[in-house]
């Protein structure tokens, strides 16, 4: 044991105050159930329980830059097994949202995809899968976009041929205006979103 870190309670406080479900991490007893339940555990820098103990220790950069927080598939396996009843998924999503809002895009593709997803909802109230993919592929600029689309083109054509793609673009829902003002208000008054 060589590294010398100093415990710093300020990050934990920051998380409790600003991250959706952030205060839930207090209940963690470090059993390791979440780590072993995760389908993508092998690819994570740190399993959830370690993220939680790092928050308690005040390792802000390590936590917000951890790929784990954006790698959640939302499968709820860890959550249903957590013996302390911690909504692990909500915490991970909250942390991801918080990190993204701070401009940290450790898993950029996911961040971009999720943001595009949300923006489309904001725009029309619904998701148009085809439009979403297009936006997602081109989010990094035209060149990568073309490359990515080409990779996926065959699949797109197949789906189109099998009638599994909507041809007409999604129309806005009728109440889109009021929905937007609702969402604006929620973003302003809710946790973790105030800084977006």
């Amino acid at each position, binding site marked *: *044991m*060589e*590294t*010398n*870190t*100093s*415990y710093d*309670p300020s990050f*934990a406080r920051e998380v*409790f105050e600003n991250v959706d479900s952030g205060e839930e991490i*207090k*209940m*963690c*007893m*470090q059993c390791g159930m979440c780590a072993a339940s995760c389908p993508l555990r092998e690819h994570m820098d740190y399993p959830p329980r*370690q993220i939680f*103990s*790092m928050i*308690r*220790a005040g390792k802000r950069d390590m936590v917000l830059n951890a790929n784990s927080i954006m790698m959640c598939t939302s499968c709820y396996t860890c959550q249903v097994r957590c013996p*302390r009843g911690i909504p692990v998924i909500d915490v991970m999503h909250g942390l991801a949202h918080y990190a993204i809002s701070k401009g940290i895009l450790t898993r950029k593709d996911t961040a971009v995809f999720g943001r595009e997803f949300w923006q489309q909802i904001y725009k029309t109230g619904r998701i148009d899968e085809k439009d979403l993919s297009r936006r997602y592929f081109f989010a990094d600029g035209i060149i990568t976009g073309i490359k990515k689309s080409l990779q996926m083109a065959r699949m797109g054509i197949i789906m189109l041929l099998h009638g599994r793609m909507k041809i007409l673009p999604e129309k806005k829902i009728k109440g889109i205006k009021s929905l937007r003002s609702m969402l604006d208000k929620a973003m302003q008054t809710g946790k973790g979103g105030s800084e977006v």
Partner: protein
Amino acid sequence: MEKKAALYICTGCGIGDALDIDSLKELATDDLGVPICKDHPFLCGAEGVDLIKKDIQDEGVNTIIIAGCSGRVNYDVFNFGPDKIVERINLREQVAWCQPPKEEDTQMLAEDYLRMGCSKANDTEPLEPYIAEEEYSKDILIVGGGVAGMTAALEIAKAGRKAILVEKEDKLGGFLGKMKKLITMPYKDLSDTGAEDLIKEVNENDNIKVYTSATVAKISGSPGLFTAEISADGNSVQERVGSVIQATGWTPYDASKLNLGYGKIKDVITNVEMEEMAAKGKITRPSDGKEVKNVLFVQCAGSRDPEHLPYCSSYCCLASLKQAAYVKEQNPEAVNYIVYKDMRTVGQAEDFYRKAQEDGDVFIRGSIVNINENGGKLSVETDDELLGERVNIEEIDLVVLAVGMVPTSQPDQIPRIQAPEGTEGADEEGMIEVMPDSGFFAKSALNLEYRQGPELPTLKYGFPDSHFICFPYETRRTGIYTAGCVRRPMEVVKAKEDAAGAAMKAIQCCEASSQGVALHPRAGDISYPEFNMQRCTQCKRCTEECPFGAINEDEKGNPLPNPTRCRRCGVCMGACPERIISFKNYSVGMIGNMIKAIEVPEEDEEKPRVIAFVCENDAYPAIDMAAIKRMQWSPYVRFIPVRCLGSINLVWVADAMSKGIDGLLFLGCRHGDDYQCHFIKGSELAETRLGKVSETLDRLALEAERVKFLEIGITDYNRIPTIINEFMETIDELGPNPYKGW
């Protein structure tokens, strides 16, 4: 009493099929001279029992010998009242069920058991309980006025008895009185300690007499008949009591022995100091009197550490969580760090661990490397196991060391005594450390006037606890019980329950003693040892070997028995070389006669004979079990149950060997650290004694292998056939006992 014996042979359960009953009857009437001898196919049935009852009524039978099932069963069916002697001969389990039917050897086995049983019945005398001439007291002395002592006193008072409570401080309360709050059932939140109410209740109860600033100068006598000399405020008062509860509690482990800055850094305190500070008001830093903000608790400060206290003190996890709650209550912004090895919030107490987590306490699994002071604040270097790093926890205002409990019975220094010459480990002056299980080990509290020392023997780490899982109130001094943290480390709620239990035992002791009835484990036994003092040689073996310190000594070395201290194990009877100690229904002579009753065939018959002396609590039931499972073994072994192997007298070895018995087996309980002998030392003493006998055997030119001691547990019945058959092989190899037929 003029004895009139009758023998009843049950032929049910396969006995009749296995044995020639008529010849057994013939043996009884013709050879053994039993005046009445009957058989019945179902003796335990109503008809069978009526047959016996009729003989009692019509024939004046008062000594009933029943040859049938094991004495472990049908005890109630064959109970004909306290004035009748009942002897059970185990023909079912230990003959019919474990031997081939209708064989000569099987029949001989049954015949021997008949001879032995009749001999025993003949030697048994009716019992009368020991009742002292003095008046018995049923009051109970409690030493220690903390939560356990006060609770015990109240529980006793509520049961309509009188309690005498002695406290060394000037007021009752102990640690409970110094506490701010309590965390107890249902472990959701802190509650009031209730100390004030408890003290008031004790002080106001008419059934409780309280002595404060008082100590016990001397306790003499025996259960039911104790006299306690209490020094209170310089006066000496005498109280007669029936039993005693030691509830002298604990002291915190000396934190200055730990390398955690205590005594050097002012803001490092113990959990006891923390509690007292919180109870008085604000939690502040001793260095500058400022209110604390960040507090770090060091769990297992000294506990679970082979260098300090190897055991877990069990209350500290909860105590620290409680004190962390005080800190939060004082300042919700405060941060508590709890550095632990394992969080041990057992049972429903887990709820309070969760509560502490909800409150935001920070838990760090690991161990402290260093505590430093700089700029008025403390920084604590810790190996954080789960982070896998050495970390610094800085800006700490106060470090609380969760120190463990040391029983008040633990001596500051282990006392030394003069050892007999040539003792291993003695120093130049011949002094040696007293063993923890000696009555001379523990720190002064009771001052018993006992030959084996003034205090309760301790078990380990200075706790005078019971060694028995099934019998947690067992102590090695009859009628003296321990309760609370002196017995083992425990939290308040458990100390209260423990006190109630000890009170129960103390009340029970007064009842039993006054009726001349034995206490556990031979509860209800009214037999007691009688000493034929004319033949005593003052060898002191009985006074030394009694596991319960029951026998005192006069200046000349004569034993002074205290029947109400006695547990009736017979260890003294086994110890006595002069055979002067006997019970009315259990004596050296009686067993000797049973041995003599065994018919030993001539050498050329090639039918060896072995006697197995077996502990009646464990080995005997194991043999029954083996028989119930219809296991089989050599028909040449005769079992003699004994109260405890500690009661075997070496003269029996001589009796047996001189009669031509080929081998002796001794089946007793496990001894050593995890001993199972319910008379503490009985089985161990037996083995020691037998160790000496082999020298004698050598001198007689008899092989030492003819006498074998084996440890056996009650569930070891699967081993019975092997044990016996292996021993028989040994005997076969050794050949017959040359003293046969002398």
